[in-house]
């Protein structure tokens, strides 16, 4: 890519894919924006008209709106907390030489390959079910009353399920980072009198900073739109207790047949995602520059 000639050629070669990606992104976004200003209900598809900001007002005044935004942030924050801390802990354990290392690593990673609805169904019916789930069995074993997870702690249950799915991803990224830590540095710290905790705080954690950032950024993108797990387990309830923004948009569009309102919600979700991204990049983005 040194000469003027190769630079021009490279740009020319890249142009089709860049153009395709641009169209791929712009068209749906533009259509959503367009529909968000239309009065467009699938129950009355012939009567489409311009309504200005009515859809936004409608979505904003929905009693579930603020709760859904709060729930979205709780899911993102909760899952990030569990996966990052748990991921570091498991990665530290997996980094030790153990018998059957290969099998253990595959087992640890396997939840990532389970599709979200399947994972949610397994958790709903086999683990968290109040009458025949594993948790209920454990409660009964200790003589306690089984907890009806999805009725009593709906949001927490969702967080647990999603965290279970994303833990392998965090573990995998952090494990590879741990393995790239120079052995002589650890030995030097050992000679310098650093105990395990000191080595972790002063050597391992700074070394992991970049990978933790990557985990946080990538997971946030996906966690803002958690949907399948909510649909199969709580269906957003009880009330709006486990409804996040993505699920609220789904309700508006496919249960209320209100395409205009859902589009307005979609645009609000895009704005929210950008706000989150902005603060995230300010908070942890500097780790990527090193």
């Amino acid at each position, binding site marked *: 890519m040194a000469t003027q000639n190769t630079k021009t050629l490279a740009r020319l070669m890249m142009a089709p894919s860049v153009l395709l990606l641009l169209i791929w992104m712009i068209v749906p976004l533009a259509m959503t924006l367009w529909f968000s200003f239309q009065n467009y209900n699938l129950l009355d598809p012939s009567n489409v008209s311009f309504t200005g900001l009515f859809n936004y007002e409608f979505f904003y005044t929905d009693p579930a709106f603020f709760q859904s935004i709060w729930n979205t942030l709780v899911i993102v924050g909760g899952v990030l907390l569990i996966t990052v801390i748990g991921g570091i802990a498991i990665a530290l354990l997996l980094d030790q030489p153990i018998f059957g290392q290969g099998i253990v690593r595959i087992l640890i990673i396997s939840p990532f390959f389970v599709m979200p609805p399947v994972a949610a169904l397994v958790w709903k019916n086999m683990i968290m079910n109040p009458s025949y789930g594993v948790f209920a069995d454990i409660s009964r074993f200790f003589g306690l009353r089984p907890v009806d997870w999805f009725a009593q702690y709906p949001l927490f249950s969702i967080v647990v399920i999603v965290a279970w799915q994303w833990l392998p991803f965090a573990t995998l990224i952090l494990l590879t980072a741990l393995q790239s830590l120079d052995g002589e540095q650890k*030995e030097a710290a050992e*000679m*310098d*009198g650093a105990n395990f905790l000191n080595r972790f705080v002063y050597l391992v954690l700074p*070394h992991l900073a970049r990978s933790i950032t990557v985990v946080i950024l990538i997971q946030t993108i996906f966690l803002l739109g958690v949907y399948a797990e909510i649909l199969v387990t709580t269906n957003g309830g009880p009330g709006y207790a486990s409804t996040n923004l993505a699920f609220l948009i789904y309700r508006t569009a496919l249960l209320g047949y209100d395409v205009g309102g859902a589009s307005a919600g979609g645009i609000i979700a895009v704005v929210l995602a950008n706000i989150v991204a902005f603060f995230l990049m300010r908070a942890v983005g500097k780790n990527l520059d090193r």
Partner: protein
Amino acid sequence: MGSITLQKVSKVFGEAKVIPSIDLEITDGEFVVFVGPSGCGKSTLLRLIAGLEDVSGGHILIDGKDVTQSAPAERGLAMVFQSYALYPHMSVRNNIAFPLKMAKMEKSAIDKKVTDAARVLNLTDYLERRPSQLSGGQRQRVAIGRAIVREPSAFLFDEPLSNLDAALRGTMRLEISDLHHQLKTTMVYVTHDQVEAMTMADKIVVLNRGNIEQVGSPLDLYRSPRNLFVAGFIGSPHMNFVDGAYAQSKNAKTAGIRPEHLNLSKDSGIWRGTVKVAEHLGADTFLHLDVEGIGQITARCDGEFGAYHGDTVYMTPDEAKLHRFDDKGLALKA
């Protein structure tokens, strides 16, 4: 104080006996160099002393105290690694201060020590930089700084100069020797480079396959190597070994003669050879010769001798500097 005693120390990795059994005495203030070919166990031996590897048998004493089971930090030793092992996300100042911080020393005392060490090592202008912003030699000095602030009873160096270019290696060699004269602390230095061993050591320990071949001052080893291995390892270019009739005439299985102890002439001598390669270094010239009935011989001559590829050269070994070895490879007394 920093005397180190090894008593029957051995190390086994699985099936491989890396170090069968070693006894060694390092007295306080000595500069000891472990030298040997790669895989001879010299680095393992250093790591055993440091406590980074567990011994399989025997005892390690530091200042008379048995530290065989002590953790690395408790032994009061400081180590400089081949890769420097600096902490990449810390400034030079924090790198040097790290061991003191771990020892829970007071902040003002740490600052003073770091400043002193930086002055000694010419690092004062670089204290706020990260290791990645330093050159190889500067990183090496930071690693040494991190070692000296601890005021250890002994320094351990694990091939510290092998990542530097030739010119810098020469400078750092001087700096480390100079540091040893200033601090007068015991230093144990591992290298595969016999030039580093010869130039820096008070005492050289020549290792081969986990065994000590010979211990002595550089000139001792040069003048009277105990066996063929030491004779061939110490000295550059290597000693020439001559078997057969010539060795028998000297009552030995093998005769050894260093390249610099051959008298060269263009018209007479007991051996006649053809120059294959002449390496002109300026002051000296190394001649690699094919000698009739003897084989390959390396000779060192004055830079002005003027021999080139294909020339015929006569040589006569200096009888007084001849080394004789028996059939077990051990040196025969003159």
